[in-house]
């Protein structure tokens, strides 16, 4: 089965994770070492980094500390797990419907105040950019904004330079994607000085995770090759898909949104052992997200689509 639903890195990596000192908690030195590595890798200030098990948990930390009298805003569709958490603690949730073909949010039409907004940049599942710097600054005047830069390594676009001057801004990233550590679920976050309460509590990560980070972040070659390979395969794939009655939307990420009139598209692929994400459960029919696989998987995808068309 070729699984293109997961928004993962298709290239496996070799890691040596020794489970020594399993009877001992992670030491302060180990955590400091991890934060130093992440600071070097991301350019974030070391004392303004929080690490946790996945980006959902990081958003939950912000929500927990700052939810009082605020509404949580997210884009629809999304795959966020923190929405249930927000509702469980009594927070109102608003989803903003994203509409093709423009795939833009008209922020100017919306009067958003006293909110925590989570905006993925690039957006998942479309791979599009839904906000610009001016609009973000405007939103930050009355709201906490969490920018989810999970796809940063692929887009090379970030709002991190705004952190110093915008106390209500958070930026979250992950080592799940380009760094290839999805199995460890390692998220990290930097934040403006108005959100220091997020730092209360410890950085949460276990020893195998820290060891994996140490090796992965030093392996720059893997990350660069992943990004380069992603770019090459993506360009070839878009060309091939466009010739197959499948419309591909521009994407800044390691996945892309496609639209097709081929009936039961995802089901037909599934019956041929290829999984893609059908978005019709909570969004529009005929739209799918395809995560980048490796070269062989992508070739198989194209061949299968051409078979289905016949």
């Amino acid at each position, binding site marked *: 089965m070729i699984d293109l639903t997961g928004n993962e890195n298709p290239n496996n990596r070799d890691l040596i994770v020794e489970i020594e000192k399993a009877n001992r908690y992670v030491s302060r030195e180990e955590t400091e070492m991890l934060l130093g590595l992440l600071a070097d890798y991301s350019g974030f200030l070391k004392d303004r980094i929080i690490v946790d098990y996945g980006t959902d948990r990081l958003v939950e930390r912000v929500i927990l500390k700052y939810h009082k009298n605020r509404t949580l805003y997210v884009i629809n569709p999304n795959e966020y797990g923190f929405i249930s958490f927000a*509702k469980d603690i*009594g927070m109102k*949730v608003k*989803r903003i419907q994203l*509409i093709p073909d423009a795939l833009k949010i008209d922020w100017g*039409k919306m009067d958003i105040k006293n909110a925590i907004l989570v905006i993925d940049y690039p957006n998942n599942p479309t791979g599009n950019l839904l906000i610009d710097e001016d609009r973000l600054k405007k939103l930050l005047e009355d709201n906490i904004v969490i920018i989810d830069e999970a796809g940063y390594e692929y887009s090379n676009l970030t709002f991190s330079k705004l952190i110093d001057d915008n106390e209500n801004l958070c930026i979250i990233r992950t080592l799940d994607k380009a760094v290839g550590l999805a199995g460890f679920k390692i998220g990290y976050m930097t934040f403006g000085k108005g959100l220091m309460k997020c730092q209360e509590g410890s950085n949460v990560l276990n020893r195998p995770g820290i060891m994996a980070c140490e090796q992965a972040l030093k392996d720059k070659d893997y990350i660069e090759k992943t990004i380069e390979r992603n770019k090459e395969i993506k360009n070839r794939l878009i060309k091939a898909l466009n010739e197959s009655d499948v419309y591909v939307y521009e994407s800044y990420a390691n996945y892309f949104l496609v639209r097709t009139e081929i009936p039961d598209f995802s089901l037909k692929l599934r019956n041929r052992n290829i999984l893609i994400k059908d978005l019709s459960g909570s*969004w529009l029919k005929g739209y799918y997200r395809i995560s980048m696989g490796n070269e062989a998987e992508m070739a198989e995808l194209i061949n299968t689509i051409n078979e289905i068309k016949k």
Partner: protein
Amino acid sequence: MIKVGLIVNPIAGMGGKVGLKGTDGKMYEKALELGAKPVTGPRLENVLKLITRKDIFFYTAPKKMGEDYLKEYNFPYEVVGEVGGETTVNDTKRLAVEIKDRGVDVIVFVGGDGTARDILDAVKTEVPVIAVPSGVKMFSSAFVLSANAAAEMINTFSDDFIEKEILDIDEEAFRNNILDAKYYGTVLVPNIEKLLQGKKAASNIKGIAVDRKKEVAKYIIENLNKDCLYILGPGTTVKEITDGLGVRKTLLGIDVLFNGEIVCFDATERDILALMKEHGNTKIIVTPIGGSGFIFGRGSRQISAEVLKGIQKEDIIIVSTLDKVGGLPCLRIDSGDRSVDERLSGEIDVLVDYNEELVMEVKC
């Protein structure tokens, strides 16, 4: 020069505001007794005044089936055939054939699902149609979104067409709270999807969707205001609220709730206006029609433009489930009064779960 056929069903839609859910058969007389007024003529006028192209010639059905409205405008036209005092289904079918035989490029008809069936019987796919919605239910996907959409279709008319469905709705079953919609056939319509309404989609009856409806209802019940009149639209999502309150509600009609009790069952437009006058503070709870996203103007004509004139946008509560409404690019309104539709257009919140909303755009 395009040659346009024109047929108006003068009695279509009259049952809507008086709660009859259709004007098939003897219901027309009952609608008159209840004070119903013709709606298709004014609807056609809303289309005619927006037609800007000059290279147009109409072949119209006589008198109130088209001629009476067309003659008020400066379009060149010819009257086709004859009709007596009261018009019937047979008049619609016969005139459609006669108009088709004049070699028209397209037939514009004004009516509801019943009229659409008659036109299909008469012309099949031999000539394309522009279906102007002015009935009660109008669930067929062949209908355009509004009078403005019909005019735009005429103004941009070309030779690109697609097939769209006509549904056969059992009116008697509909009056008994059963939506029995069957595929009846297809007609050809201009291929401009953005001007066409979607097909009505059935409500999701999977366990999780039913649970979400219950959560939506729970939130509404917990937040009902005392001494506020609630006009409840049709559909299973709204009915979940009255089920939660333990009171009876029509599934496909309009009911009015006040302090936890239904004060008007299967209300007409007149009932609603009288209650609004009596109570003042009024809110409307509706669910969009699956597939097309209409919140007003399809299937619930009792909540008319007159009713909506007395309602603020923030007093419209839209309820749905994410699987249903998330599949829509926008919500739609077509009350028959453009100024009302424009006032209620723009961003609106749809309650999709307990304390959870989807921000959508209402378009007209």
